[in-house]
């Protein structure tokens, strides 16, 4: 890629002391030219009485390669972007991922189906419960027990899933607001996220790595007064989110950084495999919860917000509205949730009760078999998909009939959307990279697996 621009002065030297390839090849001054070479007649022109002529002098520029990341203070994800810039304009970029690769798919092949849950926590680590649910549904589809899941467990999965979606979007919006200079919305949104995480901590025992879902249901029932607490927390959060919105949507600096930056058309978004809030920002109303309802999502009334232009601001606004829609779903789920068991009563899938394990030999053997061999899943293959925080989170599982997956592939929405980064920032300024990267919400754990 040669981008040498021939300036008026006929000079091919770089503007700010960058050596030309020829200079490097000749090894002149250790391959580095010490000073910028100015046009030879520049000084005489500067001294000229008529300064208008100086304005005509073009600063000779040539594309320059710089490295952004892998550890950059303004990007909340470990990614390296090798940029070719011309002044402030991005002419080319190579986005390199993989810095957070933890061999999820390889490790999953050596773990029993239940042991995979802790690994799924670490995929999209700002909404771990959505990954838990997605993986559980895939295995349950292969086991053929999706229709038999206890109703209460399905409602609990919806509730924890939507709480996770809210925390996911709050993190994305808050961090992006901070990166373009709005520190207050960040603190407020993280405060609201913390309230929700405290609730999840009470429910699961962990703030982040919950491992709460089990094949056939969830590990334990909701604690006492959980619904009341959730209702109060959501009410508090609603006002915080309203305040943050009023801080951002009419903020001149925020809007200037977001509006019309990194625009994507619907056709391109589909061709690039976008899903989730990013795809909806381009105007395509595809939401797995609506188009292929799973769990009990067909019983709730909610809207799928879509954008019109597909720029950063649309992606921001879609996420903001999705928080509200999630709250609507939560509201209905809290009203509808029935009483009952939270784990499927099937000895092939669920652990026997502790009391039975200690007192009967059959239950003890059943417990032992489930722990050591894992849940026996019939041989076959399945692709199951749910709406994750960033889009369609799919699990493709191949089983050979044993208690461990033969192959477990994650269709991670982040990975596929990050691929478009180069396209989005082409021709934009360096400063535009930060809000763009924030708004595609690349989560390292999910992207690199």
């Amino acid at each position, binding site marked *: 890629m040669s981008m040498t621009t021939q300036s008026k002065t006929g000079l091919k030297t770089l503007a700010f002391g960058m050596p030309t390839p020829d200079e490097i090849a000749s090894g002149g001054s250790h391959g580095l030219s010490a000073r910028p070479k100015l046009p030879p007649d520049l000084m005489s022109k500067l001294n000229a009485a008529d300064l208008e002529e100086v304005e005509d002098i073009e600063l000779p520029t040539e594309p320059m390669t710089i490295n952004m990341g892998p550890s950059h203070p303004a990007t909340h994800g470990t990614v390296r972007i090798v940029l070719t810039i011309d002044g402030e304009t991005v002419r080319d970029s190579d986005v390199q*991922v993989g810095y957070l690769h933890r061999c999820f798919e390889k490790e999953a092949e050596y773990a029993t189906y239940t042991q995979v849950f802790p690994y799924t926590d670490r995929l999209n680590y700002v909404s771990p419960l959505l990954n838990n649910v997605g993986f559980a549904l895939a295995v349950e589809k292969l086991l053929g027990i999706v229709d038999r899941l206890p109703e209460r467990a399905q409602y609990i999965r919806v509730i924890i899933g939507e709480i996770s979606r809210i925390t996911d979007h709050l993190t994305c919006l808050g961090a992006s607001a901070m990166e373009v200079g709005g520190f207050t919305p960040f603190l407020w949104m993280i405060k609201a996220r913390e309230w929700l995480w405290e609730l999840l901590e009470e429910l699961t025992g962990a703030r982040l790595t919950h491992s709460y879902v089990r094949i056939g249901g969830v590990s334990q029932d909701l604690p006492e007064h959980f619904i009341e607490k959730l209702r109060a927390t959501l009410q508090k959060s609603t006002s915080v989110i309203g305040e943050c919105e009023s801080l951002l949507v009419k903020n001149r600096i925020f809007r200037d950084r977001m509006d019309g930056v990194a625009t994507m058309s619907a056709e391109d978004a589909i*061709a690039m495999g976008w899903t989730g809030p990013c795809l909806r920002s381009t105007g395509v109303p595809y939401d797995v919860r609506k188009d292929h309802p799973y769990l009990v999502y067909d019983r709730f009334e909610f809207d799928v917000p879509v954008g019109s232009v597909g720029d950063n601001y649309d992606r921001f606004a879609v996420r903001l509205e999705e928080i509200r829609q999630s709250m609507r779903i939560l509201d209905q789920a809290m009203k509808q949730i029935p009483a009952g068991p939270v784990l499927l009563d099937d000895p092939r899938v669920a652990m026997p009760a502790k009391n039975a394990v200690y007192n009967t030999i059959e239950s003890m053997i059943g417990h032992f078999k489930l722990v050591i061999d894992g849940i026996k899943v019939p041989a076959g293959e399945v692709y199951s998909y749910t709406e994750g925080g960033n889009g369609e989170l799919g699990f493709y599982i191949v089983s050979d009939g044993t208690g461990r997956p033969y192959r477990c592939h994650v269709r991670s929405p982040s990975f*596929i959307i990050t691929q478009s980064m180069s396209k989005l920032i082409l021709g934009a300024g360096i400063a535009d990279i930060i809000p763009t990267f924030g708004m595609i919400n690349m989560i390292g754990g999910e992207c690199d697996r």
Partner: protein
Amino acid sequence: MSKADLDKLVAQFPQAIVSSHSNMGDDTAVVTVPALKDVMRYLRDTAGFDFLVSVTAVDFFGREPRFEVVYHLRSMATGNRLRIKAPVHEEEGGPVAEVATVSDLWPTANWQEREVYDMFGIKFTDHPDLRRILMYEEFVGHPLRKDYPKEQRQPLIRRDYSLS
């Protein structure tokens, strides 16, 4: 749900489709590697499967053909889904198997095929930029192959610090 699409596809390419089945609502067609590109082009342009959901592979070590490249498709208009599988032989005398790229049909396949190449060593012919993606350049082997031991460690050394 998309059984009709599957039947239509089988009728359209009787030679190319090795087998087809519909298990648990997942409609699957197994396509020979030479015909894969034509089938995929037909699916995108004529059958309306304009959304490539995912590209991945499975290593059936000890079975012939050893690999299977798996594509999941979705039609944005109807919501129908289809799975296409292409069995890939490990090439004799070399460790590398080859499949035609679909990244010119769906740009989203670019990184996903790079990942399959990185993890399984399956090469995609005419791919514009077939490099490793999750592992580093100096990594030896393909970690998701069944004959790559999970415990195997490699020194993480970069000798070339040049940009690009």
